[in-house]
């Protein structure tokens, strides 16, 4: 019998959510275990898909493990799922982080039932975004993610949580509106909602060039808000800072990647001419993201906000890699997204431990924690090394690929200048990470942190898994670059760059 593996990765978290939400009298402990199982199975399933993925050249860019059911025949919408080399790494990343997030949430004791139900729904929605191959389905998952995020930030967050949650919803909804308009325009030009089909359609034949450009811009705006690209980034520090730890991990780890993934899948693959035309403008934004994001990061005194801003800088690298439009640069951008998902996930998780145990998040008030929390310090430093792109970590290999690929892509004029400017981001990253480590963990031990607990067993477990993933990719990147490459190759072939 054919097992719909991809459907399982969405359906099991949803089943878990329904069970938790509607089964009366589940103890908080049972709820946590149910959630753990409901995220562990999708992780195993996606590993199985990863193992069974056909990596041969002839299958490059071809959707595998496809499932297709007619859904709304009147508008040609299908329930169709599939993975190619571009989406598979993100599927893995999502199920991986989804599983760890349950461990990270283990200490939640406020409204446990609702919390885990929302987390599981969120998990299902993000997974759906990466594996949907029908535009309408893609969009439904894209928007569905908002509702659990709103509640998770607004109820379990800190600080100005309600403000941040609503800001997040409104920004993303606005982006969604642009995406929807783009989808409708495409649908009317071609009569199809099938993303694979649309990638293989020459849109210049069916749409006027002005309309094509408008559609490109609509999509880009929607995805740029999510990535986020300057000047649409202001929701991110707020949402990150006020979200509970686990939600920050999801946000940095997988949610932002929806934007980058969609830019490659839709902006670059469906609108190659427009991508080329708009690349210089977008690359300017990338430079701003990297430098402005990095510079602002240096100024932060709130440890969570600091990592949030560092994400903006790192997403600038992604934008650079994508719109350098070379094969290697796009592979690098995808790799950077995966790597950033792991590293920033780890950093947010461990910052959560610091905050939870020390009840302090302001950097000037912290200090000398390495004495009381040696394990936490080691974990944070390892994550920091990844964020600084030190060799042997995934961050290094990802950034090197982005920069080498962009510099030599030769598709967009003046790309070397943009690349060199973005290189400054590496310096900034080294500066803010080292300075943060120094201010938080070293220096004289603070008497008020006497007796602060170190990371406990659950926290050590998820940290080790994160760190292992970071080093596996850092030392043997081919474990996923081969797959990413097979997905990127047909897209990059259109641009003809290296």
């Amino acid at each position, binding site marked *: 019998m054919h097992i719909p593996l991809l459907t399982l990765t969405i359906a099991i978290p949803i089943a878990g959510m329904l069970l938790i939400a509607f089964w009366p009298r589940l103890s908080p402990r049972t709820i946590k275990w149910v959630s753990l199982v409901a995220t562990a199975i999708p992780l195993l399933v996606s590993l199985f898909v990863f193992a069974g993925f056909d990596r041969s050249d002839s299958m490059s860019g071809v959707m595998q493990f496809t499932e297709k059911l007619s*859904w*709304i*025949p*009147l*508008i040609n919408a299908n329930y169709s799922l599939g993975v190619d080399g571009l989406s598979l790494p993100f599927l893995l990343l999502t199920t991986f982080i989804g599983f760890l997030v349950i461990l990270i949430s283990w200490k939640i004791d406020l409204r446990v039932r609702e919390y885990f139900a929302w987390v599981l729904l969120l998990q299902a929605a993000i997974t759906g975004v990466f594996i949907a191959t029908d535009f*309408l389905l893609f*969009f*439904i*998952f894209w*928007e*569905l993610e*908002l*509702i659990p995020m*709103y*509640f998770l930030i*607004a*109820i379990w967050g800190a600080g100005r949580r*309600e403000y941040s949650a*609503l800001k997040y*919803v*409104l920004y993303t*909804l*606005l982006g969604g*509106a*642009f995406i*929807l*308009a783009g989808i*409708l*325009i495409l*649908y*009317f030009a071609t009569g199809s909602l099938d993303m694979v089909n649309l990638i293989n359609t020459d849109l210049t034949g069916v749409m006027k060039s002005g309309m094509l450009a408008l559609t490109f811009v609509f999509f880009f705006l929607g995805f740029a808000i999510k990535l986020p690209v300057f000047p649409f980034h202001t929701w991110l520090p707020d949402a990150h800072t006020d979200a509970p730890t686990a939600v920050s991990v999801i946000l940095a780890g997988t949610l932002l990647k929806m934007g980058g993934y969609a830019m490659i899948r839709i902006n670059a693959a469906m609108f190659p001419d427009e991508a080329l035309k708009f690349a210089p403008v977008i690359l300017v934004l990338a430079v701003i993201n990297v430098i402005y994001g990095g510079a602002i990061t240096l100024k932060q005194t709130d440890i969570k906000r600091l990592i949030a801003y560092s994400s903006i800088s790192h997403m600038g690298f992604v934008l650079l890699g994508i719109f350098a439009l070379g094969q290697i640069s796009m592979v690098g951008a995808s790799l950077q997204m995966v790597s950033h998902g792991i590293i920033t996930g780890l950093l947010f998780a461990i910052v959560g431990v610091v905050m939870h145990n020390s009840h302090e998040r302001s950097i000037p008030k912290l200090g000398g924690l390495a004495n009381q929390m040696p394990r936490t310090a080691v974990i944070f430093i390892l994550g920091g090394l990844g964020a600084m792109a030190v060799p042997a970590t995934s961050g290094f290999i990802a950034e090197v690929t982005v920069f080498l690929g962009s510099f030599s892509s030769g598709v967009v004029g003046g790309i070397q200048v943009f690349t060199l400017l973005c290189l400054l981001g590496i310096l900034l990253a080294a500066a803010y990470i080292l300075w943060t480590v120094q201010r938080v963990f070293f220096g004289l031990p603070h008497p008020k942190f006497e007796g602060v607990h170190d990371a406990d067993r659950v926290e050590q477990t998820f940290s080790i898994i994160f760190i292992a993933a970071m080093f596996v990719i850092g030392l043997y990147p081919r474990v996923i670059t081969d797959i990413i490459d097979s997905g990127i190759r047909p897209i990059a072939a259109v641009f003809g760059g290296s």
Partner: protein
Amino acid sequence: MNYSLLAPEFIVLGTAVAVILVDLFASNKKTLVGLSVAGLIASIVVAAFQWPSTPQSLFGGMIAHDSLAGFFKIFFPIMAGLVVLASADYVENFKKFQGEYHALVLLAALGMMLIAQSSNLITLYLSLEITAVSFYVLVGIQKDKKSTESALKYVLLSGVASAVLVYGMALVFGFTGFTGLSEIAGALQSMPPSHILGSPGLLMGLIFVIAGLGFKIAAVPFQFWVPDVYEGAPTPITMYLSVASKAAGFALVIRVLSSAFIEPSALANQWAPVVAVIAAIGMTAGNLMAIPQRNIKRLLGYSTIAHAGYMLVGLAALGSQPSNSSLAIGSVLFYLICFAVSDLAAFICIIAVSRQLKSDDFPAYAGLARTSPIIAGALTLALLSLTGFPPTAGFLAKFYVFNAGVQADLLWLVVIAAINTVISAYYYFGVIKVLWLRAPAAPATVPASNPLKTALAISTIGILILGIVPAAALKLSEAAAAIFVP
């Protein structure tokens, strides 16, 4: 004369009479609920069996028996049935008038069913007034100060609108010489376009008709009665007004515009921009005015003004591109269904809450998620659907209407509508915030009777079914719209 095709209407009328008679003798007023629902179900079944495969004209062209009529002959009894179920608890507030209340709900449904099938200005006006008069009484039936004031306001303003409508109809009759919609269409088609566009009287007639109908659907600038009337009316009647009466208005607008004033397209292209502008202003104004509201009935009142605006996008699409009428009308009808289930679910929750907490203001809803998770969950789902979040009915409804708009080259209008969705999210989330994030005001749970629970279950399940597997409803809407394919 085929009277049997009016059987659903006769059943509803008969039930109304029966309700009044039974009320005289029955001591247990719950039988009225059962009787009304039974009558409505019977009429739905008959209407479904009589689903018209080919359009027919009855009574010398006064009544049309086509798929659009068939659609609404099923739609309105369902709405009336849900109103009856949802008001099962509420009628305790006016114990003496339960018979009259149920009879009037049925009569209003009868009027609306007739509106949908009128194919002549005269039957159209008569059925409109049957509906309106029933609603005047229903709005004021609570007999307290607020209710009476709303009823008076409604009578006066609706009366003015009717006068404007009749005046418009008279002008149209004067210029074309007919009252039958298809004859009017025929007369217009035989006139040269320059003659039509050159006669201000005819265009004025058209504008007056649009204005009169605009009042009924609460389109801007004829919306000012909505919040006050909605707030003062008994909540089930507010629900009835916001869902069914608005749908009736749309049935009318669709019928009149698409059968009489669609050809030649020169004429349609005249009213399309007017409708488009009304739509744009309507949704923006409705949404902006909803933001400061702190009474949930008023908030939903303003939000229905915005929703009328979204639906008008579909009508504007119809006028801009008459050749694609089935998509445009289908989208409006589908929106009506989706809006109906969502608004019903929201109002049913409000009915339940207001009975327990005696208030419709926000503080009463604080922390409802803790005290009555089912009601809070259903209300949240309804509000998400009204915002247009997937996977609820509201999302696909918007998708469809925007779809029609983009197809008719009304991209600017669709962009305005999309931005309005974001504005609406702001105030809907304001309510959701109160439900989930505030500490409960009173520890008591909200009780609900079985009929109310049934109505709530039907509408919430409807929200999800329409949002996830909408194929059947979409097919129905498109089938109903198919009569206008030129």
